[in-house]
């Protein structure tokens, strides 16, 4: 859905005088600010789709905008940015973020910014978080906005920062400066099998996501999977009161004690397309608890309570599944609501990570309309939940009160996952 140009100009005229929101031009110029660009890096999946187009709605879709500049923070041996710049000479390789945004001039010269701060060789915190420089990159972008007296929409891939304070600062700045801000994982916007939407105004009692991967990397995807569903509930999102993490023996004890609902965990596992067979000679078999213990060396769970009483549990079962599966118990419904948030994942199953296509498409919509298709508050919350999970694990599974996560927001009723 495209707004007409005059609609946007009218909107811009009503914006506060201090920092004028951009009026999206007919063909926006986009700057990409990324950590690393190589085969299978997030920057490659995203920027390539702007450059080469992608399959969308049953045709090869070329985004109606131009990727005019690229900043790459690190260039290891397998860097692709030089090759891309050669084939796409309209894209300027810039040595600084400022130059990527001003195109060598003195003022902001682009209409949108894509910030991809995933992957790269960065130090780790004592808690094991990779210190991706999202905050630093964001600050450089904001510097140009401030000096130009103008803001444009920004997309941030994945979480805002490993550091909660910085993430909050990014959010606060975006509010204060009225920067249209979109962020998060591809999980909320990818295909679903089945293709079902969490009912708007449902009343969930419990929600579970069973996925895979590591702490501080894939837990975020599990949290976004949960959040994009439960935020649609009656009353909207009310924020999170506390979080407690489990791993290893604590995890198995908690599972046994029924800390989170076993039936929802089972429902989620039954949505998997990759449930690892527990017995040789069988290709698709439901694991016993002993099977799970044997196959999952590092189980992790974050259990947290929302302000309205909803309990959510993000579970990582690396070794048992290789996909993300959601299940929730809804008031008044006997059977759980469940689905898989399906990622066509290269290289084993596909050659393209086409779950980046709906993500890029949402970015396009924001660059053309000035409006993020879903609220930044979702990713502020999941960023905070990720950090809280890391903290709780670091503190041996202590329950942490999270008053800073009293983030209330309402989600759009219209579905934003891949359905067309």
């Amino acid at each position, binding site marked *: 859905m495209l707004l007409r140009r005059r609609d946007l100009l009218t909107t811009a005229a009503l914006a506060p005088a201090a920092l004028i929101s951009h009026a999206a031009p007919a063909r926006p110029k986009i700057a990409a600010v990324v950590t690393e660009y190589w085969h299978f890096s997030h920057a490659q999946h995203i920027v390539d789709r702007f450059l080469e187009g992608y399959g969308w709605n049953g045709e090869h879709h070329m985004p109606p905008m131009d990727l005019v500049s690229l900043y790459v923070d690190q260039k290891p041996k397998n860097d692709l940015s030089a090759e891309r710049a050669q084939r796409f000479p309209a894209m300027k390789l810039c040595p600084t973020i400022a130059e990527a945004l001003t195109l060598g001039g003195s003022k902001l010269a682009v209409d949108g910014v894509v910030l991809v701060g995933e992957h790269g060789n960065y130090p780790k915190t004592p808690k094991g978080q990779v210190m991706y420089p999202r905050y630093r990159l964001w600050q450089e972008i904001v510097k140009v906005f401030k000096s130009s007296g103008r803001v444009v929409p920004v997309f941030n891939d994945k979480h805002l920062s490993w550091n909660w304070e910085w993430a909050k600062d990014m959010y606060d700045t975006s509010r204060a400066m009225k920067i249209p801000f979109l962020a998060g994982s591809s999980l909320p916007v990818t295909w679903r099998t089945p293709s079902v939407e969490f009912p708007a105004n449902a009343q969930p009692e419990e929600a579970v996501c069973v996925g895979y991967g590591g702490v501080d990397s894939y837990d975020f995807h599990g949290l976004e999977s949960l959040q994009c569903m439960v935020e649609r509930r009656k009353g909207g999102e009310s924020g999170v009161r506390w979080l407690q993490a489990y791993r290893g023996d604590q995890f198995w004890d908690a599972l046994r004690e029924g800390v989170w609902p076993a039936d929802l965990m089972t429902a989620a596992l039954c949505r998997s397309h990759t449930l690892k067979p527990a017995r040789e000679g069988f290709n698709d078999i439901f694991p016993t608890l002993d099977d799970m213990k044997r196959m999952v060396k590092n189980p992790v769970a974050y259990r947290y309570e929302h302000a309205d009483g909803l309990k959510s549990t993000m579970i990582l079962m690396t070794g048992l599944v290789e996909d993300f599966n959601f299940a929730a118990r809804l008031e008044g419904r006997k059977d759980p609501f469940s689905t898989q948030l399906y990622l066509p994942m290269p*290289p084993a199953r596909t050659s393209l990570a086409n779950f980046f296509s709906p993500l890029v498409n949402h970015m396009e919509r924001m660059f053309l309309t000035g409006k993020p298709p879903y609220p930044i508050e979702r990713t502020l919350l999941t960023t905070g939940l990720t950090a809280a999970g890391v903290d709780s694990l670091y503190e041996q599974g202590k329950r942490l009160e999270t008053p800073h996560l009293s983030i209330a927001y309402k989600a759009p009723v219209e579905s934003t996952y891949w359905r067309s």
Partner: protein
Amino acid sequence: MRVAIVSTVYYYLSHAQHIGDRFLIGYPLAGRWHKPDVKVVSLYVDQKPKGDQSEERAREFGFTVYPTIAETLRCGGPKLACDAVLIIGEHGDYPLNAKGQKLYPRHEFFKQCVEVFEQDGRAVPIYNDKHLSYSFEKAKWMVEASKRLKFPMLAGSSLPVTWRLPDVEMPAGAQVVEAVMVGEGGPDIMGFHALEAMQCMLERRAGGETGVRTVETLEGDAVWAAAREGKWSAELQGSALSRSDTPQGLTLQDGRTQDLMKPGVLQKLVAKPLACRIEYRDGTRATLLMLNGAIKDFNFAARLKGHARPLSTQFLLTPVPNVTYSACLVSKIEEMLTTGRAPYPVERTLLTSGLTEACLTSLAEHKRIDTPHLNVQYRPPAASQHMRA
């Protein structure tokens, strides 16, 4: 519900194993682990190569492996002793005919089942996995036998019932102008799975299915020439290709997306293209493109009258080893067992079996062939049959 399984082989990842096991240990269905209310009582395996699991399954799950099909259906007793038969005639070591078709003994197995039905005065539902036969005449005999003895029959591929991306259905009664299906040819050479996927969409068109008039298979440069001449819609070909998650070539090299319709791209990737042009009796045209080397999945596009944009989708084949798409298929088999009716007509697979044969005949004879024998008529159920829950 007592079920007998008649299979060519039963080893890990054979069709018999991933279909049969679902009746033994259950399968994921609609967000729960579902255990069918079915007892497998007997098994026949035609071949027992290395890795054969028939005996260990029989031991663990309390059934018997019999040396003949008749004994399998009678569980070693004097009369038919089961309530349904699954004929899984896929995989195993069988000769190829001159057209490259593997001579799986599906018809032969089926005939033996029918003989037991006739002798014992009772017939039960039969599921036949994949195509009915490499020969249309044999396939036709099978369907006619089921009508004559009045037993429900279900057949075909899992593609019609697996997940779709997007989850779309051909509107019932749609006026289809043209359709294109793109896929990769497996050991079948000619894509039976692709034909079933295409047929499960096209059969829903206005007037129902009334059969195929001609078939023409092109190979090699003739495919590119025909494409250039506009023998089928480039828009539909592009639409179907745009649904693929598996473009090869440069995508494998550095992960970039590609427009496979750009001049020269497909020619570079596909050493041996095949195009099967199908002309239905009601004028509908469909083209099956086997593009080995360009993509590895199955994607469909159709132009419908009154619709500005083509209808297009990918038939999702979920990964090995779980192949959860076979769970979708088993749920359909179960539906026949519990309702006593096939959820979709066996005539679909009669037609696609015949189409597979005809496409290969046309390929062998290097010319378009008339297919008056493919006047297979049927109407599909109005409700969608693929996995959506």
